[in-house]
């Protein structure tokens, strides 16, 4: 009798799960599609190749940051310092080029190194120092920004190297290089998170760090790696930002990017409690915010009101996912 009951249960559950599965996986994509349809109806400019290219290029920086943020959030952490890492890494890159006449390659390497290092310190504070991620990365946000400001006297450092500027501004096969970099990063993040042992372990630690530890996962190493990846992506973002503008402005570059990145990840279906989230979800989240901002611009909505719309969309997106 009891086994029969369980059998039935399972079937019912199965059905519900199937619907839930589709919804879980595609509710963000669905939202994105709805948004795109609306946008195309509302503005004739929207569905042009040039505009789509624009949107993609515009989201590429925050998008790349959001990829790293996805790792950290799935792990159950958060990284408020990515915007400041972007500013500091950018400062390193531009300073290397301008003040030390480094080659483009060397300066990029230094910038990436800077990002990875800060990620490492974040990871150490969280694991070794047992400081809540929010506080540790909040402190790092202040510190990294401050170092950049100090170095450049809160001003901008402008580059002269036109080769470097090409990264941010040129096209390959008609696609802007930042978009290509973003695509490559999406692909790599997807592979790492979904196909490798490390990715599995990140989900495991985020899902239940106690169980992960007792299942012979080095929570320490996994955590550090996740923050490291996040620092790295922030540095990649800084390469695009600085090459696009051929300068870094230490006081404004990267300001509030962390919040946009976090919002994208959450809209993409991840949970701040950890253990849940997908790279493709984040990609859709990023695109939703990008399309939203673009269409509001195209429709000439007061820039001051755009925040209201954005806030409401975040709430709506999170509410949609809540049904479980």
């Amino acid at each position: 009798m009891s086994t029969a009951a369980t059998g039935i249960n399972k079937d019912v559950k199965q059905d519900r799960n199937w619907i839930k599965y589709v919804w879980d996986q595609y509710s963000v994509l669905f939202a994105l599609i709805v948004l795109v349809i609306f946008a195309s109806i509302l503005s004739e400019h929207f569905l042009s190749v040039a505009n789509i290219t624009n949107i993609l290029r515009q989201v590429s920086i925050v998008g790349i940051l959001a990829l790293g943020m996805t790792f950290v959030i799935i792990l159950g952490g958060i990284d408020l310092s990515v915007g400041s890492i972007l500013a500091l890494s950018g400062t390193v890159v531009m300073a290397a080029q301008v003040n030390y006449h480094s080659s483009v390659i060397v300066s990029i390497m230094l910038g990436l190194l800077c990002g990875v290092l800060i990620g490492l310190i974040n990871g150490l504070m969280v694991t070794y120092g047992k400081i809540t991620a929010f506080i540790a990365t909040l402190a790092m946000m202040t510190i990294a920004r401050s170092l950049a400001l100090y170095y450049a006297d809160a001003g901008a450092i402008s580059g002269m190297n036109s080769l470097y500027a090409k990264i941010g501004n040129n096209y390959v096969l008609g696609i802007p290089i930042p978009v290509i970099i973003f695509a490559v990063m999406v692909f790599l993040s997807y592979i790492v998170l979904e196909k490798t042992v490390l990715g599995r372990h990140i989900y495991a630690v985020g899902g239940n760090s106690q169980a992960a530890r007792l299942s012979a996962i080095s929570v320490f190493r996994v955590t550090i790696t996740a923050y490291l990846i996040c620092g790295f992506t922030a540095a990649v973002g800084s390469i695009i930002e600085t090459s696009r503008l051929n300068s870094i402005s230490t006081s404004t570059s990267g300001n509030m990017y962390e919040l946009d990145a976090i919002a994208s990840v959450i809209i993409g279906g991840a949970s701040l409690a950890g253990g849940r989230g997908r790279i493709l979800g984040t990609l859709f989240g990023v695109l939703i915010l990008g399309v939203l901002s673009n269409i509001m611009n195209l429709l000439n909505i007061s820039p001051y009101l755009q925040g209201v719309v954005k806030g409401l969309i975040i709430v709506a997106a999170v509410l949609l996912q809540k049904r479980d």
Partner: protein
Amino acid sequence: MLLEMKGISKSFFKVNALNQVQFNLNAGEAHAIVGENGAGKSTLMKILAGIHQPDDGEIILRGKPVTISSTNVSKRLGISIIHQELNLIPHMSVAENIFLGREHRKGGFFSDFGSMVRETKSLLESFDLQLDPNALISSLSIGEQQIVEIAKAMSMQAEILIMDEPTAVLEEKEAQKLFELIHQFKSKGVAIIYISHRLNELKRFCDRITVLRDGQFVTTLSMEGLTEREIANLMVGRELSDLYPDKRQRFGDEILRVERLTRKRNFEDVSFSVRRGEIVGFAGLIGAGRTELVRTIFGDWQPDAGAVYWKGKKATFRSPLDAVQAGIGFATEDRKRTGLFLDLGVTQNVSVTCSGKVSKWSFIRRKLERQFVEQKINELNVKVHKRTGPVKNLSGGNQQKIVLAKWIASDSELFILDEPTRGIDVGARKEIYEMISRFAAEGKAVIVISSELPELLGLCNRILVMHHGKIKGELDHTVANEQNVMALATGL
């Protein structure tokens, strides 16, 4: 009749927790409810406490039908409950916890600490306990916390007092005190509903007993003339002995030896050894330190003194990773908290300990992984339809099997199983016992920790009994019985 529950049914997402259960209670009586894990005892009580609403059935209190729609209503009707799990606020004082939600007030808004502390003091004195009413809960031991829970329930001046396994974490002395109090309450006309897995307690003050099994009402009997064995048989619904497989007698080499292992405030001077093919049981009351001991062996915690020898060589496991690489598997006692990744799928849960085997250059080979996991869960007869759905949707027994499958997949040579059958129905239990026996037959060693004595007696070749962090004795299965194990476990 004070209380009557008729035809109570309750299901959670189509899991029938209660099915047409009836129960009645007289003023001034102590009424025991027994049943296996998951029989529905707590659920029935939670309905009385206003936490769950029954799907069907009626509750008649003092002759009038009532609807207990919230914890508040329950309190107003004179029902108070000690929950199975501790429900205290760690960073608040004893007094504040006792009066939580019904604080003494001054001027409507202000909390009257003075009077609450005074009342708490006299309340605790009736327990003969020198607990400081101002002490923070987080500074108390589990047993002391339980006393706070009891004091809290008792201070409500209820007419019906429900106790869901109140003695599970109590010392013998404290338990005695509780029984005295129960007698006092009874004589004042308070009715008591008492749930416990320690069947020997029931005879001391319970007047009647109600047995539940698989959410079904079995019977209500007078306590008089009932033996513990009869109660147990009623609970399980069959003779207990046929649950357990035959025991092997021939063992291989020693695989694990622990010498004078000590971890301050948890256990001290623990020495024992385990051989291949052997099933060693650890008995003891809750809080005896068994979990701490095995977690230390497993490298999760570090010992203060003593040594662990693995296959004859001294081993230092700095983390579970080291222990697993050496060949130890550890299924923890709390599968939800420390065993499973509830949001992840079956495949991911099982393959987490053996990612090396199903990956190449750190890349997971999906197909290989699927086949591998498939094979393991077939071995264990786990019933799942969908490998990728989150394991939180599985039934408790199947969840427990996933935990075990994880360790089978890792090719462990020693399995440490902490409460392997907690919350598992009889059928699944039997399968797990058979699996444990099969491990032993394959020349692997097994350490089983369990709070259920019959399980240890039925399963193990040898039982080590712990009390207060020390091994009090070792009993071969040929001589072990409930009495002598219990005697050691209670430190008598």
